């Protein structure tokens, strides 16, 4: 269904004409130039993959994509609130399909909140609410009429701290598929998922062992396998390596790169090097005085890191604050 929606979008939008123009513009941008004027038609712009600065009232800086690419998610003016506290304010950006997108920014800038908007995890927090639009397959995820359970099945999540169920490794992986009515060969699905999570070789002889008996890095890969087993389209990762040692971190990062071939990955990270290593696109978020997170800049990771358009992005990346 996802494919249908996006192919439809692509065929109807003037993507082919927009792309060359963008590439020209990018090559010209040797000296920092003011952001290019936003396209008049938001939908068109999104489909064309031209940029993110869709609303002239917003201050987010856009980069232009030369890459012709489908969008897995399209955010429009997404705001999130916890009770009366506003956590993020009117973020507008795309999440490119089959790419790794990193959300970076200092603590408290709303990265995790934004990530948890994508699969409606914030629904579970009393008093939390979201405004705006997150388009996924032509529907607004935030719409209360959209089934949050279905959303979570299509958009999986891996958490900061590895949290395998206190059950066997097999059951950990099989659980999601089972409750979603998977009727195929469960053994094969489990093996497949564990293989994709690069864990199969280490656990294939002890699938009955408790998931909690694994090491931290293995547990996190088990959680990734668990997310994969549901066959989602997007995998959200909330600082997946922050609780792991460097070797395990490297494994998770390699895994992210491999998974990006089949899945769209959105990763929140505090680790700038990690964002630089694994992500194709980067969004820089920053909270102002009033602690409301805003999107500062979005673009290809290389551009963000080597040639940021916003001074604040540059300051953050060079370690001047945050």
């Amino acid at each position, binding site marked *: 269904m996802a494919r249908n929606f996006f192919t439809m979008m692509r065929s109807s939008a003037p993507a082919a004409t927009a792309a060359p123009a963008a590439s020209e513009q990018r090559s010209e941008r040797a000296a920092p130039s003011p952001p290019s004027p936003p396209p008049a038609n938001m939908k068109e712009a999104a489909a064309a993959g031209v940029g993110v600065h869709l609303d002239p009232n917003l201050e987010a800086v856009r980069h232009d994509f030369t890459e012709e690419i489908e969008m897995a998610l399209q955010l429009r003016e997404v705001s999130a609130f916890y009770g009366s506290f506003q956590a993020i304010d009117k973020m507008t950006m795309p999440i490119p399909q089959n790419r790794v997108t990193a959300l970076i920014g200092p603590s408290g800038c709303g990265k995790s909140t934004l990530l948890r908007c994508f*699969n409606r*995890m914030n629904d*579970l927090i*009393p008093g939390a609410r979201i405004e705006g639009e997150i388009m996924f397959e032509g529907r607004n995820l935030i719409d209360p009429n959209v089934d949050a*359970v*279905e959303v*979570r*099945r*299509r958009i*999986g*999540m*891996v*958490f900061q*701290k590895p*949290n*395998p*169920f*206190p059950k066997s490794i097999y059951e950990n992986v099989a*659980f*999601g598929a089972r*409750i*979603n009515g998977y009727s195929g060969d469960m053994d094969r699905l489990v093996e497949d998922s564990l293989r994709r999570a690069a864990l199969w070789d280490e656990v294939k002889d002890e699938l009955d062992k408790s998931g*909690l008996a694994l090491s931290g890095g293995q547990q996190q890969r088990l*959680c990734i396998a*668990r*997310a994969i*087993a*549901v066959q989602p389209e997007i995998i959200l990762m909330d600082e997946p390596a922050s609780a792991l040692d460097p070797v395990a971190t490297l494994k998770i990062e390699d895994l992210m790169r491999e998974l990006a071939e089949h899945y769209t990955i959105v990763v929140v990270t505090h680790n700038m090097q990690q964002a630089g290593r694994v992500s194709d696109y980067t969004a820089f978020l920053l909270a102002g005085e009033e602690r409301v997170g805003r999107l500062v800049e979005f673009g290809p990771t290389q551009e963000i890191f080597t040639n940021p358009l916003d001074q604040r992005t540059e300051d953050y990346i060079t370690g001047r604050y945050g």
Partner: protein
Amino acid sequence: MSAAIPTAGITPFAPRIRARRGLSVGFMVIALLAITASMLMLGALIVEILVDGAAQVFTDGSSTVAEVRGETLIDLPTPENMNWLAWAMPVAILLPFLGLRVVRSLIADIPALAERAIGFATTLPVALFVHILYVRFESAYYIEYAKAIGVDGASGNIVQLFGEASGFQFVRLIVAGLILPLGIIAAGWFWSSRLRRPSLLLPGIAIAAWVVYLFLDPFFLSSYPSRLPVQAGIFSAITGTLYMMVITAAVAFPLGVGAAIYLEEYARRNWFSRMIQVNISNLAGVPSIIYGLLGLQVFVRVLEFERSVLAGACTMALLVMPIIIVSAQEALRTVPPSMREAAYAVGATRWQVVRFHVLPYAFGGMLTGNILAMSRAIGETAPLIAIGALTFIAFLADSPTDDFTVMPIQVFNWVTRPQSGFHEIAASGIIILMLVLLVMNAAAIIMRQRTRTDW
């Protein structure tokens, strides 16, 4: 780098890691003594049996039953003449285990043969003990037989056992009463420990059974109430208690757990749920007699359950429900939020999260709370008296609508009688009640240990 730090005058503090082995010479001696003593004790026991025969060792030689039957089978045992045996048995059971514990702490790898030897020395007393129990029950059969044919003095009743309420008897009661709970708790502790330790469960059970054997008579457990203290038993009260407990648990556990799940997992945090929460806590503190009056009106009169097991069980269910709800809520709260999130993140509905994750992980804790609540209900007397439970039941309840009695009411009744014989069987009734309570609490402790998950 360390050279830069001035060390003169500073005594570097290095915590001495005290090696267990190095310290344990004293323990070694104790272990050897313990093993030697237990071996000697066993040897003495075996020699005594071989020389005198089991009948002489375990009985007092009064041969009424055998005479009646015209056979020379066994004689009736009474505890008075087997004091040293009474003491030797628990010690003989415990010592090898203590020895094994210490030996294990001294030597990392005990030769398998030595371990087997110690194990054998441990199981031997237990096996012997089972044999003694067998003899005991066998004799109980003859007691009843003797009664049936009207032979005096053949009663193995508690009255006889407590006939002389001497100081020694009293001390023995106290000490035995201490050994039992300590043994069970220790058993649960050792059993649930993750370290490789010899389990104390078996000797714990053996000691408990031994104490029961010393002080209680099977006949007392299997007789109905009587106007004669000698013939009175607690059978109908025990079965009534069990019957009521089963129904109480069947009513209170699902309702209580359901309420806890609703409050913890589903209810929004608003004034209504807070009010319910406060009220539940308050209900836990309401005097039980008030529940009795409520049960009398609601169950006995309005619902017309009469003075039945069902009415009693429903009243008890009301009484213990707050305890069950609160403990179940506690258990649910111990399941980390990350587990719920993990389940939601793979597309589980709220019910699936509760059904497949929260509930299974919290179930051990819920069960523990339930057992503790039941052990409160088992001792409650006032509400049942209020609803009019009977005290003289010479039959077993067939259906939940039959009359019934329970142990505390039976004991209460005996205590209020003028005859001293009834006071004595009241004492033994209390011991049984305490035993049941201790077993239930021990089960709760063990269950809590076993079902704990380290997140």
